[in-house]
């Protein structure tokens, strides 16, 4: 079909322009070339996803036709000062903070408190010095190219945080990875690539945020690899607070060792178009994954989460609790796919997706899928789509709280249950404030009673 060649061309064009620019400005480093080649080959063989692919059936990609995304290789981003990103800072800023501006490490904005022995912080483009061998070896070790954008990331990965904790190391306090995107004259695309490796028994807290400075148009195409050794523990808190005109795609791929604990909280609040793919693979027995998420889709906002949880070994537990808040013509897509392999006996998995519709004109497509091949498991799923509970509204109003504020409080409460799973109090507070301010600027609901 002609639209196929057209659309395929878009992604190819992003690749061509990106490679062209990269060749000029950033000479390839040997240790990354295998990943880049694999990515390039992937882009060549994969078409832009369309509605015929189940995983992309409800994900509109029309924006690719409307903008010619330019590669961002480097820019005058050093000019940015800490005072410029004041508004983006957490009230209690982590002592270790890696800041990326339009996909590239901005050393001047980073905070690098001395961390414990056995903690290695590096960056893909070498801004923090030469990348140690153990991180080089781990890059691209678990990434799958499940769609062309993941391959594109491998081909064009710009920069990113590389974090390694040696066996038994417990990190005190969180590490923050803060992305700041500044709108450019032409909408740009960047490909952040992060890697977090916890060796056996290590423990860490990571905050990962994607922010827009101003309301520019741009496309963030991120890929994050997380590898947890046996008995390790990662608290991973991710917040997507991109500009209202941005597109954001994150592909998070997690590999869990035996008895490890992975706790993810995802707050996807910003962007015009947002998609978060989360793949968690259980590679050792006795591991636990707790995944919580909130998706906000205000008027004209699109917010999509795809989970792919693979129980491949016995005795693992997963909890997937995702919520959507929709208003105006907002759209939420939730695809929660859990596979329990034949050998994965005693798997315990509970998936839930609850959606709060503030307007009839909003749309949610939710698809929980449990694919179970083992016979001794405890798995369940549930989804709900509902409006605000009139009993709750009346209760608040009977106490003197005006209707609009009552609605606001209930939405906030609905989301708060997700935010409360964040370890960082500063981040919880920020998530709450962001949600409140975004709900406040929402278009008022039609047909108010």
């Amino acid at each position, binding site marked *: 079909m002609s639209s196929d060649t057209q659309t395929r061309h878009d992604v190819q064009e992003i690749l061509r322009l990106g490679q062209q620019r990269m060749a000029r400005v950033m000479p390839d480093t040997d240790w990354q070339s295998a990943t880049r080649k694999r990515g390039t080959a992937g882009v060549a063989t994969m078409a832009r996803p369309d509605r015929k692919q189940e995983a992309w059936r409800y994900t509109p990609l029309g924006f690719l036709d409307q903008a010619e995304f330019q590669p961002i290789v480097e820019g005058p981003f050093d000019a940015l000062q800490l005072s410029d990103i004041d508004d983006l800072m957490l009230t209690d800023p982590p002592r270790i903070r890696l800041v990326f501006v339009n996909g590239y490490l901005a050393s001047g904005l980073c905070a690098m408190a001395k961390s414990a022995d056995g903690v290695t912080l590096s960056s893909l483009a070498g801004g923090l010095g030469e990348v140690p061998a153990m991180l080089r070896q781990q890059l691209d070790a678990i990434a799958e190219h499940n769609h062309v954008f993941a391959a594109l990331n491998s081909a064009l990965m710009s920069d990113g945080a590389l974090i390694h904790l040696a066996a038994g190391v417990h990190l005190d306090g969180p590490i923050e990875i803060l992305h700041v995107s500044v709108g450019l004259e032409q909408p740009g695309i960047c490909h952040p690539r992060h890697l977090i490796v916890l060796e056996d028994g290590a423990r860490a807290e990571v905050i990962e945020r994607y922010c827009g400075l101003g309301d520019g148009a741009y496309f963030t195409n991120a890929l994050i690899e997380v590898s947890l050794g046996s008995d390790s523990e990662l608290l991973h808190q991710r917040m997507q607070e991109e500009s209202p005109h941005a597109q954001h795609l994150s592909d998070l791929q997690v590999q869990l060792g035996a008895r490890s604990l992975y706790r993810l909280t995802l707050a996807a609040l910003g962007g015009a178009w947002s998609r978060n793919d989360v793949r968690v693979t259980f590679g050792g027995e006795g591991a636990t994954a707790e995944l919580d998420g909130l998706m906000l889709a205000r008027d004209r906002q699109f917010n999509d989460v795809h989970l792919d949880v693979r129980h491949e070994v016995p005795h693992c537990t997963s909890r997937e609790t995702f919520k959507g808040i929709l208003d105006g013509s907002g759209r939420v897509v939730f695809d929660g796919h859990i596979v329990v392999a034949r050998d994965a006996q005693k798997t315990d998995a509970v998936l839930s997706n609850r959606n709060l519709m503030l307007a009839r004109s909003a749309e949610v497509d939710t698809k929980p899928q449990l694919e179970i091949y083992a016979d001794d498991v405890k798995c369940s799923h549930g989804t709900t789509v509902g409006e605000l509970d009139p009993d709750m509204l009346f*209760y608040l109003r*009977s*106490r*003197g709280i005006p209707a609009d504020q009552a609605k606001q*409080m209930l939405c906030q*409460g609905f989301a708060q249950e997700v935010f409360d799973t964040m370890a960082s109090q500063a981040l919880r507070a920020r998530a709450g404030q962001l949600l409140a301010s975004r709900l406040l600027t929402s278009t008022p609901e039609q047909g108010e009673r």
Partner: protein
Amino acid sequence: MMLSIKNLKAQVEGKEIIKGLDLQVGPGEVHAIMGPNGSGKSTLAHILAGRDGYDVTDGEILFEGRSLIGLAPEERASRGIFLAFQYPVELPGVNNTHFLKEALNAQRKARGEPELDSVAFLKLIREKLAMVSMSPELLKRPVNAGFSGGEKKRNEILQMALLEPRLAILDETDSGLDIDALKTVSDGVNALRSPDRSVILVTHYQRLLDYIQPDFVHVLAGGRIVRSGDKGLAKELEAKGYGWLSGQDEAA
């Protein structure tokens, strides 16, 4: 007159529940409204609080001389009407302290009074907590979520103590309470009795009236008040049941 209801008729989903009800409540008075299940007691309580879905088809409700009909629930609350719910609603994720503060400040704002800041509010709520013997821990939790039956009712009385209404309507506040909780809740209500505050107790059983002494007792049956008297009427009801009054139910 604090509250004056004349010939009130009201429907729920097209069915007439209140069929010509008259009630006069003076300042400082405590009125008990008793009656069998389905007599319209709770409906009356909800109509006064302004719940959606109850259509007043005839009659008038004057509160301090002004009509309540058509007013939003929040406007009624700000004017001084408070409904203690029979089944207090759980609000997951909504912090109890936050809720109480927002409620108080919303009312103060509506009345043109200055809002309380966090410090002043916390000081105030601590005083009120002591009044209802409620654990401060319950302030940190989401509103009513996971509260026991007794804790929920105490939380209602706490709200009443905080919001200091002119007219408090207690809808079956005694239901599901053990004696200790009943006593604490009653003490809270009694402490709030004052010459310019009126109380309507909606209850099925006489038990609550041992703790909160009413000035008047009314029997509601078939959507009307069929008999009024003093607290002696409640004793009589306990002894004889409702059947002898309703005129419709001769079973007793």
